[in-house]
């Protein structure tokens, strides 16, 4: 555009020189001022940055990664550039998922897989990320539009589907298995799945997929009254799965009986969703880049600014068959795990002996053995830390009842039954 504006200015000047009649001078000058103004504006028009081959630590204002690579220089992260190898799947591109996607995009994540079946609505504008001009676009397309502008280095894949349907689930599973991005990666094709959906049904579906694929994932949620939320790390076989115990939620402290639900389904705040997205991506970065402590469960009570934490062991009686398989595998792998942990301890002891840092231990921080930690067996409510409750009850002990056929319907052929219902439906 600036080339054309430049040519227009040249033409105007040529015209001014060639015109013998000075009465047109003023209007040509006016046109010239307009074109100059447009040229100025054009400088700020959206220009896409080009892709960057290697992440540089050079501190110049044209380097999008200099402040991130500084984490490595400061010794917080050992190898920041590894982030470009990782694939993260985000299920649900709503108030939490879209913000998480933007954070990971700005961090220079290698690849993002985005799943949602919904469209952008004006009613979403109280949340971050989506813009009014994107109303009517699918959330996945709108997200790809914005994210690819922010950082063209990120490989983006969008899946506009509902993962809870049989067909959607199959596509979801095969997209997670696909290993074209990093063919040598072990396990599935993604490093982490982030569940940012807004309902129990979809969370159970993500849980099902991750248990079957032996895929580590993180759960996130914001309560329907918008004043509490949580994130949770789920490692199949090692931690409780989402079906091992009824879902844990942060008690908002608001009495359910005084909560007015007439005329509304759910409330939402950009603040609570932004905080939860931030906690989720922080945990994701720590998990992927191996720094700090990765939280197994972190709650957020916005009314009290209270952050409960806990850990949950898997339930040996979990209703999910794949969860039980993963638990068995985890137990079988114990000797190998112990040997690896021992080797790591010995290597660390060697390093400590060589350079004794933190001798004074000013803050009296002591390292606690993992096994000593208070791990709750998610099933019993009494063991829950203060401020956390179960969202749903467990299924009642189910006794096999006398086969109901004998009591009310002796037909046992599917087609006959279908015809029986059709006949009832016909009149």
């Amino acid at each position, binding site marked *: 555009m600036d080339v054309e504006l430049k040519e227009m200015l040249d033409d105007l000047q040529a015209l001014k020189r060639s015109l013998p009649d000075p009465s047109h001078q003023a209007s040509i000058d006016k046109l010239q001022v307009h074109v100059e103004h447009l040229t100025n504006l054009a400088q700020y028009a959206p220009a896409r940055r080009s892709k960057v081959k290697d992440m540089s630590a050079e501190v110049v204002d044209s380097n999008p990664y200099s402040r991130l690579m500084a984490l490595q220089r400061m010794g917080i992260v050992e190898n920041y550039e590894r982030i470009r190898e990782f694939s993260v799947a985000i299920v649900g591109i709503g108030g939490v998922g879209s913000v998480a996607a933007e954070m990971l995009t700005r961090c220079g994540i290698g690849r993002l897989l985005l799943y949602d079946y919904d469209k952008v609505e004006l009613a979403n504008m109280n949340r971050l990320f989506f813009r009014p001009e994107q109303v009517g676009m699918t959330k996945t397309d709108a997200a790809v539009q914005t994210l690819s502008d922010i950082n063209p280095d990120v490989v983006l894949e969008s899946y506009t589907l509902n993962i809870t*349907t*049989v067909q959607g689930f199959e596509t979801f599973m095969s997209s997670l298995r696909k290993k074209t991005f990093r063919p040598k990666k072990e396990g599935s094709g993604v490093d982490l799945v982030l569940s940012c959906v807004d309902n129990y049904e979809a969370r159970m579906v993500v849980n*099902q997929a991750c248990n079957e694929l032996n895929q580590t994932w993180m759960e996130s949620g914001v309560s329907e009254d918008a004043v509490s939320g949580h994130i949770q790390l789920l490692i199949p076989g090692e931690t409780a799965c989402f079906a091992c115990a009824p879902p844990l939620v942060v008690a908002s402290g608001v009495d359910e009986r005084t909560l007015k639900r007439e005329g509304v389904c759910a409330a939402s705040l950009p603040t609570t969703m932004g905080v939860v997205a931030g906690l989720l991506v922080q945990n994701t970065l720590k998990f992927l880049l191996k720094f700090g402590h990765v939280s197994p469960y972190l709650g957020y009570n916005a009314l009290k600014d209270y952050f409960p934490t806990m850990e949950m062991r898997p339930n040996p009686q979990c209703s999910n068959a794949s969860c039980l398989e993963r638990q068995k595998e985890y137990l079988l792998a114990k000797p190998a795990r112990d040997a690896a942990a021992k080797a790591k301890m010995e290597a660390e002891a060697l390093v400590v002996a060589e350079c004794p840092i933190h001798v004074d231990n000013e803050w009296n921080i002591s390292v606690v053995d993992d096994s000593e930690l208070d791990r709750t067996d998610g099933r019993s409510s009494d063991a829950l830390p203060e401020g956390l409750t179960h969202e749903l009850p467990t299924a009642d002990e189910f006794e096999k009842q006398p086969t*109901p056929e004998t009591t009310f319907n002796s037909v046992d052929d599917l087609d006959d039954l279908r015809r029986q219902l059709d006949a*009832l*439906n016909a009149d």
Partner: protein
Amino acid sequence: MEGWDPNTKSALTQIPLLSIKAGPRDGAAWTQRLKEEYKALIAYTGMNKSNDNDWFRISAANSEGTRWTGKCWYVHNLLKYEFDLQFDIPVTYPLTAPEIELPQLDGKTHKMYRGGKICLTVHFKPLWAKNCPRFGIAHALCLGLAPWLAAEIPILVDSGMIKHKDDSASSSES
């Protein structure tokens, strides 16, 4: 069953319970479950008819029985309001209930999630979870959709958000 009205309670207790815990990805077990679903739906529909409380039609829209479509209606001030009804059986069924959709009412009420999914009461999910796998499609309609229609349709009609089908056209029959 705290929080439920007596009509819902008595209807619910008469719907036969199911016993097979199987979802659409479970092959032969799902076929067995599907038979139980039909039996419960047949019993519930028949019961509604004999009680002069017929209020829905539902049938499987595919041979796998994973998608269901039909109609439901509600009578308010002697006028009948009828709506399309649809839902998919989720892959995690019956651990999670089907999400019932009334697509024609999408965007007309706050008591609905995107896509026309009805917003269930706080009592529905706990009761469903507690009774897995005994509750099926018929129970979801009885506990989920029936109370929703009873609560929301009068409000939608009185506020003018929905009109009776004879209202718009000048009725020449009368």
